[in-house]
């Protein structure tokens, strides 16, 4: 589709879903993930100029799709709307695209200003006040996400902890990749699956890098594509893995302590956090990131792309952290 045709269709979609005249300004393609394209633009709606983003699903054929939870952009939008209703600072969705829009699968949301780059959030002086409140905010936001009524988001895949571990084993087997330390970590996870789990909506990728942060703290939670129904402690563990600390020393995103996170979550949710249970998910989070490194590295090799290929060489980082965690050196 030509740029002119694309803008014509986008304007028609704006008029249909949000309002006219729908004149578009400053259209920019932002760096997107592998599975989607993100665009930023401003649009005249009524007498206002709205700052907007659009996310479109990219068509990738992934032989591993469906093994672990993953949702397309339209369902991400539906989930973000449900999250907004329980007070989660998710992107405010203005339109979910329809086939008649001829733009593909996607949604349009209000654009939110702020910083997403991990190293800046963790190190810049400017975010020092934000870092003071973010641990508490993370606990509160996760508690709210876990309050979303699962029946409102029936499109989410459900995996309990054992099923989630088994799904990741299948990914490793698909590649025929054999690394004794990874085998050890998977076996450990199989043997240490938490016996008691609640069953809630889980964000699946809640971490620094997927949060829009302002000077005052967290403004918005992004990247809902790995959402699922599962053990809510998964989100608390994932937030603590070292890769997402971006060089910061503290466990929670480089800025907070686990204890403070657990306390904030308990206050906001009314559910006690058993530290060993959260630690299981932190340990298994490291295993998941190791497997992601494998997966991204293999994709990079296929594409002949250096940045993604090099991620394959990061697989030992989370496995090293995994051993520190299970041996109490974490």
């Amino acid at each position, binding site marked *: 589709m030509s740029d002119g045709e694309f803008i014509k269709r986008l304007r028609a979609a704006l008029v249909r879903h949000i309002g006219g005249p729908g004149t578009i300004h400053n259209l920019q393609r932002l760096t997107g993930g592998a599975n989607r394209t993100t665009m930023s633009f401003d649009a005249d709606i009524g007498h206002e100029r709205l700052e907007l983003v659009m996310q479109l699903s990219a068509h990738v054929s992934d032989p591993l799709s469906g093994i672990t939870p993953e949702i397309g952009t339209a369902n991400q939008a539906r989930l973000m709307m449900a999250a907004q209703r329980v007070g989660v600072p998710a992107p405010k969705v203005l339109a979910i695209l329809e086939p008649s829009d001829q733009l593909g699968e996607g949604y349009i949301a209000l654009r939110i200003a702020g910083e997403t780059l991990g190293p800046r959030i963790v190190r810049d002086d400017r975010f020092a006040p934000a870092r003071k409140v973010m641990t508490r905010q993370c606990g509160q936001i996760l508690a709210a996400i876990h309050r979303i009524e699962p029946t409102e988001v029936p499109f989410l895949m459900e995996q309990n902890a054992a099923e989630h571990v088994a799904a990741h084993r299948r990914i490793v087997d698909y590649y025929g990749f*054999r*690394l*004794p*330390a990874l*085998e*050890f970590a*998977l*076996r*450990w996870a199989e*043997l240490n699956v938490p016996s008691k789990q609640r069953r809630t909506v889980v964000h699946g990728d809640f971490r620094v890098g997927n949060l829009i942060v302002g000077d005052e703290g967290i403004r918005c939670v992004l990247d809902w594509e790995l959402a699922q129904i599962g053990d809510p402690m998964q989100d608390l563990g994932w937030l603590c893995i*070292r890769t997402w600390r971006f060089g910061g*020393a*503290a*466990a929670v995103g480089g800025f907070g302590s686990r204890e403070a996170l657990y306390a904030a979550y308990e206050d906001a949710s009314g559910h006690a956090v058993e530290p060993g249970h959260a630690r299981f998910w932190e340990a298994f989070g490291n295993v998941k990131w190791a497997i992601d490194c494998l997966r991204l590295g293999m994709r990079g090799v296929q594409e002949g792309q*250096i*940045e993604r290929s*090099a991620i394959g*060489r*990061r697989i*030992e*980082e989370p*496995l*090293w*952290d995994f*051993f*520190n*965690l299970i*041996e109490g*050196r*974490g």
Partner: protein
Amino acid sequence: MHLRNIPLILSCETFMPTSIPDVTTLLTAAAKYLEQELMPTLSGYHRFQTRVTVNVLNIIRRETELRVAQEADELNRLRRMLKHDGTLEALNDELCELIRTGQIDLDNAELRAHLRQSLADALAINNPKWTLVENR
């Protein structure tokens, strides 16, 4: 063995013709150019990709320097632990199978020390900084 053969053998081992400069020197020079001369002139996407490329060249250099000795050590540890000989690949596959099927206890101290050493070796090539700061 005839005495006259000795210098020949020695010459094969010590004076075998090799290209100059060696791989380490070339990679160091390439990384230095990219990092110190090219990168300051770049921004955004290309600056980032160049940073990644410098990292990759450094990985290749460290692998060239370290991997042969690491593999010999790894093979020795595997032979000791599994109590028989084999190729590195075959012994690693066997260890994976033992772990996966529960035939080796996860609390086995020799196993844990071996896996940690193998990870430390790989990190010494792929990202030496990672093991410097202990995980908190």
